[in-house]
């Protein structure tokens, strides 16, 4: 790394302010003014639209395996989604995913 200390602090400060402004943007500027109906309809899908796209590449090409597909991690991801859809409860889904991950890792280590 060849940056000076002040350059590094400038990066940290600008990222800090910039990230805050991104997070504050709509919440800060719109406040309780009404939003268009179609915008509200789009925004209701935000969690379902953002997080699967963020996670999917990590499931197919995990960092820890150097990007190689790992059937154990894929299985754990599928188990998490199925338990979550079935039980409608995040904690059960986490448990299902973690048990599948470590259970399958344990079994493959044994045999």
């Amino acid at each position: 790394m060849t940056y000076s200390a002040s350059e590094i602090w400038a990066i940290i400060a600008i990222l800090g302010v910039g990230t805050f402004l991104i997070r504050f943007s709509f919440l800060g500027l719109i406040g309780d003014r009404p939003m268009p109906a179609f915008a509200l309809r789009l925004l209701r899908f935000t969690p379902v639209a953002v997080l699967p796209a963020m996670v999917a590449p990590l499931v197919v090409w995990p960092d820890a395996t150097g990007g190689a597909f790992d059937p154990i991690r894929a299985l754990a991801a599928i188990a998490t989604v199925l338990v979550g859809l079935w039980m409608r409860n995040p904690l059960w889904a986490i448990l299902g995913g973690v048990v599948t991950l470590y259970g399958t890792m344990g079994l493959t280590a044994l045999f």
Partner: protein
Amino acid sequence: MTVSTAKRTTRPAYWAGVRDGAPFILMAGPFALLFGVIATDAGLTLAQAMGFSVLVIAGASQFAAVQLMVENAGIAFVLLAALAVNLRMAMYSASLVPYLGAAPLWQRATVAYLNFDQTYITAIARYEAYAQMSVHDRVLYFFGVATPITPVWFGATLAGILAGQTIPEAWALDFIMPIMFLAMVAPMVRSLAHVAAAVVSVSVGIALAGLPSGFGLLIAAGAAMLTGAMVEIWMEGRKT
């Protein structure tokens, strides 16, 4: 014996948030620890690494920035790439407006500072499930969710800086994050429109995974939101 009624009414929402946020310690802890280790390896001082975790407080973008700094990328490129990773939070911000828009400015600013993936997804799931929550209770709930996660994020970063030891990869802790996000999202898939949005999100997310970090995600999210809205309109049209 006199307990103020204000306290009695504010507490349940806050403590419900603390309870729902607590499991994310499992995920924030290892993630922040790893950031502390990598930032120190990269040559950042203790204050600089902590500065990232306290001022930026957005894991994925912190890793992206440090990675590019190790490669001695231009400062403008470091900033652009890391901020692109965080642009999804503008969508989070917009989707919180119907629930929190009426809160006082300082509360909205504090929520904005604490608005990362874990707090957002936990809070929005609660707001959708309990439509009758007051704005005040929603803010308290959000602060409650952030209460266990935020100190762990700071503390584990510091522990990583001081310990300087990476967690063994055999523990597969890298995969706790995908599991927790999938676990949060799956119960929110309630209709055909949600299924369609999730399928588009996954497909486009994978197809565009080769783009610079953040950009593929934004396109996938936009396409998925549009898909969800269009399918919902189509379903409403079929009912009438």
